């Protein structure tokens, strides 16, 4: 008779269901922001359009591609671990992490540019703008900021996965953490798929 309390082992379907439920809460966390966005966009559509021109659609598109590719590499790393190709799995996660870094660097320049133009909440320039534009930038910083936080958390999670593959604790038999890390990373991608057209592609 096994002891439940002191066992660290969680069976894979149980762990995966837990992760999915957690992803649902994440979706609703961003969901609250999407509700605000939808209401404000319908209220200030002209201002939103105008303010969105300040955003660099090229950087936005680049980051979209970066995240899509990273989603694929992390999915492939799972395939690799299932096929017992540990080194390839680690390599693919490493590529994912690099792409996450590229995303964050882009984000850094993007935010830095805005802040250089004094387009940050509470700035003097911002106070002179029409209400809808203030709202757009407020939402822009809040949404991309919260998303960037998730990129960082996802990156940390995948780093842990990488080290556990190295130590052999994630292997062809047991890869629940790897699977959940990948699911989390896909969520980061999923949110961005909505953020990109809503923030960068407004006409």
């Amino acid at each position, binding site marked *: 008779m096994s002891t*439940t*309390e002191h066992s660290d082992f969680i069976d894979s379907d149980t762990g995966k269901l*837990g992760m999915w439920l957690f992803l649902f809460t994440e979706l609703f966390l961003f969901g*609250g922001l999407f509700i605000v966005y939808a*209401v404000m966009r319908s209220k200030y559509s002209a201002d939103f359009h105008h303010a969105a021109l300040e955003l660099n659609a090229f950087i936005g598109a680049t980051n979209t591609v970066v995240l899509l590719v990273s989603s694929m590499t992390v999915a492939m790393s799972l395939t690799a671990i299932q096929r017992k190709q540990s080194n390839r799995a680690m390599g693919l996660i490493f590529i994912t992490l690099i792409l996450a870094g590229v995303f964050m660097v882009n984000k850094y320049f993007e935010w830095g540019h805005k802040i250089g133009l004094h387009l940050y909440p509470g700035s003097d320039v911002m106070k002179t703008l029409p209400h809808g534009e203030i709202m757009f930038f407020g939402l822009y910083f809040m949404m991309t900021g919260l998303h960037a936080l998730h990129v960082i958390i996802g990156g940390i999670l995948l780093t842990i996965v990488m080290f556990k593959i190295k130590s052999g604790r994630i292997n062809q038999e047991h890869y629940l953490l790897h699977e959940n890390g990948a699911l989390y990373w896909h969520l980061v991608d999923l949110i961005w798929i909505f953020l990109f057209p809503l923030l960068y592609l407004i006409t």
Partner: protein
Amino acid sequence: MNDSSTAVPLNFLNHKTGLWSWLSSTDHKRIGLLYLYSITVFFCVAAVLGLLMKIEKFAPGQTIMTAQTYNGMFTIHGIIMIFIVVIPGLAAVFGNILLPIMIGAKDVAFPKLNLFSWYVYITGAFLGLYSQFAHGHVPDTGWTFYVPYSAEATSNVVIALTAAFVLGFASILTGLNFIVTIHRMRAPGMTWFRMPLFPWSLYATAWIQILATPIIGITLLMVIAERTFQIGFFDPKLGGDPVLYQHLFWIYSHPAVYVMILPAMGVVSEIFPTFSQKPIFGYGAIVFSSLAIAFVGYLVWGHHMYTSGMSYQARWAFSLLTFLVAVPSAIKVFNWLSTMYGGSVDLKPPLLYAISFIFLFSIGGFTGLTLGSLATDIQVHNTEFIVAHFHYIIFGGMGFGFFAAIHYWYPKIYGRMYSNRWAYIAWGILFTGFNILYFPMFIMGIQGMPRRYFDYDPKFTLGQEISSIGAFILIIGLIAMISNLVYHRRKGAIAPANPWHGVTLEWQIPSPPPHENFDEVPVITHDPYVFDHPYTK
């Protein structure tokens, strides 16, 4: 350390001792008790605050506190009662202790996460307390944190908001754990429709917890951002919309009412069959009405906002949906009553509390319909009618459900019996005090007594005095009830494994339950409430 030669058999309470063995335990039963003790302490604090407010209102004009103190007091009373006591309440305490046992599991799906969520909870609870004592002013926004006031008030609003955010996170983790537990940990043979009704109600509750709580999380973050970074989501000066805050707030906080009440409904659904010795009437109807309440309850938030400036179309749509949610609640009441009909009813304290639950919840429910219909709501909005209504629902419903639960499962948890005599006396005082306290508020509310006022027109003096006297009686009843339970924890008679002749799984194991609940995994071969089964004889 406990030698097996001692008279008391090993159980989850005594198999390890010392404070640390409790604070580090991943045993669901011990975590449930940790929640029970912390919730009781906070409940007593908030109840005293409530009593102080009632003393202030004993006479018109200022009596024992200033208006500002009163504002702070109803705010923190609300924050503690809602976020720290009632929302975790039944799910975290009795859900934790009994859910795994009732479905035949050894623990929840993620025991460590379960312990972690208690620590998150206690952190949030202390943050809530800290907002009272930190440098600056006591938060005075009311527990609803309505903008624009909460965005501008100079009091410790950010700390209180953070507390609510952290507490919400604990609630999410508990809900997540329960859903996975119910999906994955049921004993062999325990199909979905062989599951007792308390787990079912927890299942519906848990879905609300994980799908509604994030909305309040992000909303509170937005208010924090508004205060610290001047992003004006809700501030009209920056183009924001204060009504949008109310939408987001109630998208969570209305379903939260069902987080409070659904488990209480689950508890009484266990109590009625046991004390009638008769299968529950309409098992399927109760299951589906729980799920229906959870779903429809998610869509009725706007009935808190009839006077906030919503469009007319939204108001009648929300009114319609609100009336819909009354249907499944009524179905449950009929089922409980039908369960008692023709049974051998044994009016033990748990049943007494369960019946008073129906009585008080029905009054709360009917007045809820008064508030759900547009025209009458506009008349009584923001009066003491509202205060009376939600205390009937939350205290009369969830509170009495909680008391029913503790009197029902007390012998199982501690292996001791409380004094029935004292339980009856305490119930009498409590029930009388409750009604004397809250019922006059309905009348004064209709007469126009606004809520959240520390002073009032002298014409309300009589009603307020009656209400305040009720508060004293209620507190005496609470003291009597808690003393009875605390005293008999060690001095009570030894309880048998199945004192009430219940048939669900928790009654088939010793009291208190052994550390790992079941010596061997139970195999379930029949429906949950079958009273002629051999092992009940």
